């Protein structure tokens, strides 16, 4: 795929979440479950766009409601930079209205908070399978 990155390089993820504790644990867990994947992080939509431009990750795991710039606006910008980017949306039940806005942008999966890691890992594996760049599961 025309990712602008070196062919054959392992997939990379960007995780965007405004709660620092949640972000920290998400990164650690994904990193330990999928050791071959590079994990980048950002604390809001604006930082997310910057990190995306810098690293061009294949998958973006993002919260919706964040300060400065929310997940929806960020996803719109990222899609315009690279349309084939996949999104996994982390959302609370109360954010359903926002989630509908995200449908227009398109996402691979949405995970309801509180996050159950089993479901998140399944969603990540599906993304990687679609991407055809599946690294060995640890």
């Amino acid at each position, binding site marked *: 795929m025309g990712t602008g990155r070196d062919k054959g390089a392992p997939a990379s993820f960007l995780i965007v979440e405004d*709660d620092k504790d949640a972000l920290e644990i998400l990164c650690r867990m994904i990193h330990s479950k999928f050791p071959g994947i590079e994990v980048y992080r950002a604390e809001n939509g604006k930082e997310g766009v910057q990190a995306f431009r810098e690293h061009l990750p294949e998958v973006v795991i993002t919260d919706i*409601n964040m300060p400065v710039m929310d997940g929806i606006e960020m996803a719109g910008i990222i899609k315009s930079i690279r349309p084939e980017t996949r999104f996994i949306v982390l959302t609370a039940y109360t954010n359903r209205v926002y989630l509908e806005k995200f449908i227009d942008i398109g996402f691979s999966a949405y995970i309801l908070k509180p996050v159950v890691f089993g479901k998140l890992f399944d969603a990540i594996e599906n993304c990687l399978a679609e991407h055809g760049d599946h690294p060995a599961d640890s």
Partner: protein
Amino acid sequence: MKRPSDERENWQAQREKIIGLGERSLRKTYYPELQQRLEELEQAEEALKKANEELELRVAERTAQLEKSRAELKAQNEDLLRTYRELEEETKQRIRAMEELGEKERLLIQQSRMAAMGEMLGNIAHQWRQPLNVLGMVIQQLQLAYQQGDFSGELLEKNIGKAMDIILLLSQTIDDFRDFSSPDKMKSIFSVKEVLAKTFSLIGESFREQHIEIRTEITGEPQIRGYPNEYSQVLINIFVNARDAFVERGTQDALLTVRVRTKRGRVVVTVADNAGGIGEDIIDRIFDAYFTTRELGKGSGVGLFMAKTIIEKNMGGRLTVRNTDGGAEFRIEV
């Protein structure tokens, strides 16, 4: 033998002998005088009769007058009695109306408190989502670390510490909420700074969610003598009002500025938003009971009315509002 005529002549003679006047003289001298006296007597009797009649007439007239006065007085008395009864009835109605008003006010206070508590519960629901999410992750991390052989005492220690912090935080919210929901029984001296902090802890999440910045400027350590929970309820009503205005109008860079300072022995708190202000056609009515600009079922129209009642009636302060350049500014002075 003697004859009757002889005898008569004899009596007249004897009388003449006694009084010195004969029959003829007698008739001549006294008759007119008697006649005159008789006439006088008759006249006197006539006058007396006339006077008597006049008197009776006057008595009758006076009696009629008195009867009339009595009837008038009776009528007046009845009027007075009627007025008195009407007044009595009116007083009863007024007392009833006052009681109904008191009942209504209590109902309003109750409604307003319920509305504020509903607002808080909604907030707590939001506020808890994130910590619950983290709590879930912290616990799952232990399980996954164990499965992958990364488990360590250090990780266990760290995650339990984090989980406990979160649990205590959640528990604190319940305490704050419970403290708020119990009514203040008596006036106490409280710190405005503390009440503000508690209020934000209860409803701040919905402001973060809407990306509304809250800026507080507190000068000194102002204290108020009054009801802290009711004061907090007033703050909530004003904050929520501003938040809803921001959301409704889609204000960019929404900012709520809360200033606290002491002025001439009174604590002045101003809450200013930049949501565009209140229409001049309704600004005089926003503290009226059941006045709301929101659609049916959304706003109770009780919040600001209660806020004014609490500040002015219960705490002897003043609550006012005005428009500034960018929005509305509420001023609480106690």
